[in-house]
């Protein structure tokens, strides 16, 4: 099945990389080529910057350009649109500023290569996607940047294509392990809204973000609100005291960001008191664990759960780390599929992939 067919049901589709140079733009180009071949009108925006000539950190790395067909919609800055030299019809001025100029929405009057830099804020990216759908696009593609995940929130996009690659490590097994951890994070279990805990957490989330956090008992009855900014500031001793005070506490719901320090300190307190605590967040983009995986914290007695799931539709791989090493694509995909079940894995530049070949030179993938 083609990547575009697999992702067709998501009107707003986010592309998120696990790091820079994992092949987001190559994946975007593959999707664009397939949608163009199928005659599907598309819109494109990026929370970062896409289709630039050189890597912003390592100038030696040439980047693939973004090629859009005539009639495509794009949300990018006025300066980049003019610089592309592609004829276009201006549809909206958004008033949203970026370091590269004001974001506008335009329809291309001819095919061309355009550097795409839309609004940085996820909420604004959603607004761009909605505007492009309203202007006639059948699908809006929202490209991520570096390792930023906010665009994959279910409050922004309807589906996600995640991108991983050799750039994560020189050790193929490390690439697989880190990808597995990232995908576990994306697919955290969802609390059913009709269960007692889920209902309590949902009620809390609906109450608005000013509450910040609350401690919940298993039957969902004893919700106690916690001080503002609790998950950002609470120290280990404070958390231990909280769990000692609330003997029936089964979960802590956090409306904002869940930093690793908090997860670690809850794990410490849970292990010492031999309890299990579920940390509930709005969605997976609110969880910030880098040092240890979800599995590690689960073994320590801390489960992570979300109120709204992310619909992960596909995983793409770039077997080449630019200016460094590369792996055999088929082997990398095999190793990944052994560890990560239930998600199709593609290398869109590999001969075995039968999709429309993106108009990107394979030279970009040439072995170093």
């Amino acid at each position, binding site marked *: 099945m083609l990547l575009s067919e697999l992702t067709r049901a998501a009107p707003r589709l986010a592309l998120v990389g696990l790091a820079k140079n994992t092949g987001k733009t190559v994946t975007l180009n593959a999707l664009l080529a397939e949608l163009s071949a199928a005659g599907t009108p598309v819109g494109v925006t990026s929370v*970062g910057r896409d289709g630039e000539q050189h890597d912003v950190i390592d100038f030696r790395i040439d980047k693939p350009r973004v090629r859009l067909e005539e009639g495509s919609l794009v949300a990018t800055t006025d300066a980049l649109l003019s610089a592309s030299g592609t004829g276009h019809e201006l549809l909206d001025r958004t008033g949203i500023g970026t370091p590269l100029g004001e974001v506008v929405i335009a329809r291309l009057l001819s095919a061309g290569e355009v550097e795409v830099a839309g609004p940085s804020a996820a909420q604004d990216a959603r607004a761009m996607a909605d505007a492009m759908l309203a202007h006639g696009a059948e699908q809006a593609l929202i490209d991520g940047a570096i390792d930023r995940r906010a665009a994959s929130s279910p409050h922004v996009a309807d589906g996600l294509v995640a991108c991983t690659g050799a750039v994560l490590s020189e050790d193929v097994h490390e690439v697989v392990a880190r990808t597995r951890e990232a995908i576990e994070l994306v697919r955290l279990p969802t609390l059913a809204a009709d269960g007692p805990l889920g209902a309590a957490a949902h009620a809390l989330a609906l109450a608005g973000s000013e509450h910040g956090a609350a401690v919940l008992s298993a039957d969902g009855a004893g919700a106690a609100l916690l001080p503002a900014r609790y998950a950002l500031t609470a120290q280990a001793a404070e958390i231990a005291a909280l769990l000692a005070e609330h003997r029936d506490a089964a979960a802590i719901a956090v409306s904002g*960001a869940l930093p690793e320090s908090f997860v670690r300190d809850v794990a410490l307190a849970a292990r010492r008191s031999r309890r299990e605590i579920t940390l509930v967040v709005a969605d997976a983009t609110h969880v*910030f664990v880098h040092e240890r995986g979800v599995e590690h914290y689960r073994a320590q007695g801390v489960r992570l759960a979300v109120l709204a799931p992310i619909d992960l539709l596909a995983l793409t791989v770039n077997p080449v780390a630019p200016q460094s090493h590369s792996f055999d694509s088929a082997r990398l995909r095999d190793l990944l599929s052994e560890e990560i079940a239930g998600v199709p894995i593609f290398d869109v530049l590999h001969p075995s992939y039968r999709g429309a070949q993106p108009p990107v030179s394979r030279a970009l993938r040439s072995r170093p």
Partner: protein
Amino acid sequence: MPEREVDLTRVRPYADHLGDGLVQMSFTLPVPYSLAARRAALELASAMGFEEPEVVHYEQLTPGYTYFVMYVRCAATVDFASLQEEGFDIEYLSEDEIETFAAEHVRRPIVVVGASTGSDTHSVGIDAMLNLKGYHGHHGLEGYRAFETYNLGSQVPNAALLAKAIEVGADAILVSQTVTQQNLHVQNLTELVEMVEAEGRRREVILACGGPRVTNELAKELGYDAGFSKGTYPHHLASFIVRELAARAAVPR
């Protein structure tokens, strides 16, 4: 003063007369001080694409290392006019103009919280921007009537910086970070942006980052509203913040 009109579409370096392309550069080679070393410097300058290379000074730094000062000619030109049109040029306000602008358009203290985050121990950048003492005779934001500043120092975790910003109702968060080619600090910079998103405050707060390798392009990819590099003075940062706040107030979202 130039005797003739500068062609802003074809600009090259200037020393004695307009368009002469003269460049002075200095570097060190890990070779012993010798005539061969001098020859190596000349060849290297040619390899860099410079014309008429001339070694005007060279000396031994330490055994096995030679330091050079060279004059070379640069034939390449750059199109300044089109860069100007691209819209990333900010016209900087003076300190007095910033105070007046803030009093007219913002009409309340502008709260700025800054730090060097993660493992970065350098606080010199953030101190230069925020502290009264400032930098090169330009005092930092602390010295302005328009600003209320909080400098949290170095090695500050993102969670702590964000908590403080929320506590004091920050209009802007300023992060100083040394970005290296190895991307060591990039994850730290994106994490702050993502945490601000998770707190649902990305549209309310101005995020600016600064560091020796930070450009507007990098800032955009990282998700910041602006990036500031070497050569930035506090009034550059202040100009951006007051203008951005005024612009946001004018366009309700």
